């Protein structure tokens, strides 16, 4: 991107304008996510920077909203600390309950989606697969169809089948929403998959399970894991289906945030959001490392 020597002054000006423009767009992308981090340490119940914060006065900052995350919903938040206090947090604090629910639902939905999705992707990436395109379109459609339509459909369906207000119902729904991601990432790793490897293994006498676990699995594993991560994030971030089919004691983190945003907008929401941002940074790093590993394994060079 160095400015070529033959550039006219106008072009030089343009290049600089372009760089500044790009910088502003990057700011637009990232600033909203970073801005909540300092605000979550606000000592005041406001959503904006106080004078004390701007002058870096330590009094302007506090951890009170992180404490609120722990204590909100507790039976006796004022009781002296100790095992009983933490037990109270574990059993009653609203955000802790929400986190537990989110993890239970997210992990179960991810396992289901990854298992079914990976097996199906293996079939889909075989050239012999009949109606490949149509079936692929159907399997990807949960990602495309507006969630409100899915949620509405599931609402009536679950009411009729007794799945409403059950963990099973939410898990099935979230698995459905996560499956397209697994299919896409796993088929992507299978593109350019060298089928002669499996044939060679079979020729050398390996049984089909052995071929799968020793040859195919290591190669597609990065795709499977990043698909699983996508599925997990989809479930972890999903609120519409939860709003429609979950019982009131099945609050998940996004649902808790939704309630919080609509009623009591306190910086506690920002504290939760900050934790989620850190969580997504960890996820992003994992996926990025996996992608590079996959490319290395398959011998694709970074150009």
């Amino acid at each position: 991107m160095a400015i070529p020597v033959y550039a006219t002054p106008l072009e030089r000006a343009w290049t600089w304008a372009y760089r500044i423009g790009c910088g502003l767009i990057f700011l637009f992308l990232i600033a909203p996510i970073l801005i909540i981090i300092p605000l979550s340490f606000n000592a005041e119940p406001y959503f904006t920077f106080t004078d004390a914060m701007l002058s870096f006065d330590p009094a302007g900052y506090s951890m009170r909203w992180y404490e609120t995350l722990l204590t909100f919903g507790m039976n006796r938040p004022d009781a002296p600390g100790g095992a009983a206090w933490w037990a109270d947090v574990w059993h009653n604090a609203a955000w802790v309950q929400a986190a537990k629910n989110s993890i239970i639902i997210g992990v179960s939905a991810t396992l289901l989606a990854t298992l079914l999705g990976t097996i199906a992707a293996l079939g889909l990436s075989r050239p012999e697969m009949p109606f490949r395109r149509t079936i692929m379109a159907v399997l990807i459609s949960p990602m495309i169809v507006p969630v409100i339509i899915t949620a509405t459909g599931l609402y009536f369906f679950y009411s009729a089948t007794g799945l409403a207000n059950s963990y099973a119902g939410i898990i099935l729904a979230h698995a459905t929403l996560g499956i397209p991601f697994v299919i896409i990432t796993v088929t992507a790793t299978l593109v350019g998959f060298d089928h002669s490897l499996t044939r060679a293994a079979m020729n050398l006498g390996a049984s089909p399970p052995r071929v799968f676990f020793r040859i195919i699995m290591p190669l597609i594993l990065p795709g499977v894991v990043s698909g699983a991560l996508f599925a997990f994030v989809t479930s972890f971030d999903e609120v519409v289906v939860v709003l429609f089919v979950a019982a009131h004691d099945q609050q998940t983190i996004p649902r808790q945030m939704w309630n919080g945003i609509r009623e009591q907008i306190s910086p506690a929401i920002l504290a939760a959001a900050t934790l989620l941002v850190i969580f997504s940074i960890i996820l992003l790093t994992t996926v990025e490392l996996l992608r590079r590993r996959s490319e290395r394994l398959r011998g694709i060079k970074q150009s």
Partner: protein
Amino acid sequence: MFLKKLLATSALVALGAAGAQAGEITVMSWGGAYTKSQVEAYQKPWMEATGNKVVSVDADNPATPIKPQVEAGNVTIDIADVEYSDAVRLCDEGLLEEIDASALPPAPDGTPAEEDFIDGALTDCAVANIVWSTIYAYDTTKFPDSPPTTMADFFDLEKFPGKRGMRKAAKANLEMALMADGVPAEEVYDLLETDEGVDRAFAKLDTIKDSVVWWEAGAQPPQLLADGEVVMTTAYNGRIFNAAVGEDKPFQIVWDGQIMDFDLFVIPKGAPNKELAMDFLKFSTGTKPLADQASWISYGPARKSSGALVGTFMDGKTEMAPHMPTAEANMGNALVNDFEFWADRDTELSERFNAWLASS
């Protein structure tokens, strides 16, 4: 000796049996300070007295989840706290259990429940607990010199510039618009029965539409005022009271044009713990719990016998009586919500209201 042992054993058995019977009910209410007042005045004492557990859940309007739950045959709520017109409407649609008023406890002096409750507080399917009202309140720091005093002032953007908060529903807004337009309280519903009246109300709302921030949950208006998002907002009077007195916020209620309504307990048809729910309902609509609730939030008890027991706010110094919607000074220009009007017309007027909201 033997007898003593026998007694002890049977007592233990009885205890065990009571423990096994202890159940759980789910009560759905409006959230925030209002739910808290019910938890303190009704739920905790009931739990202590009976050993049962109450799960308290919140909704923007507890009447809305009832229909889907009953139709799906998947009811999870045992008791809901709803507005009058919703109670009548849900009852009309066969979605509620009927409640026998004669089973309710009498007043301490023996007056039967049917006479002890205020007129209209008992219906086929519902028992009222409180009288509340929709009022509007303003931030006193925004209007230090000449504060708003009438309903018309709420609609006067010139004299009182700034954003307004209003509930995202037709109910109460149409009445307030007409009162602001100079219609006396007693004529409001007659006028709203006519197309011209409805048109006139919407025309009045049109004048401030661009300055309105719409709220849905009862906890939002005090929040909107506190955040400075609006300078005045319609609200449930108790929420403003709790923010102003309980949290020292500079909020002032304008009682002119207040719209009074009951909140009632209903039991959805097919509630999972109907018997227990009925027991809770009888307990909490008793004279003392109703009076106790008033020390947590400024809503008037629905029983006459509770009135005398109403004391001070939980801060121990604020007398509750002058903050009640029913206080003499606040009744100057008050409207009583016409539940039949809204039971019949809510669907139609909501439809029109939504079309009006969506048109820009």
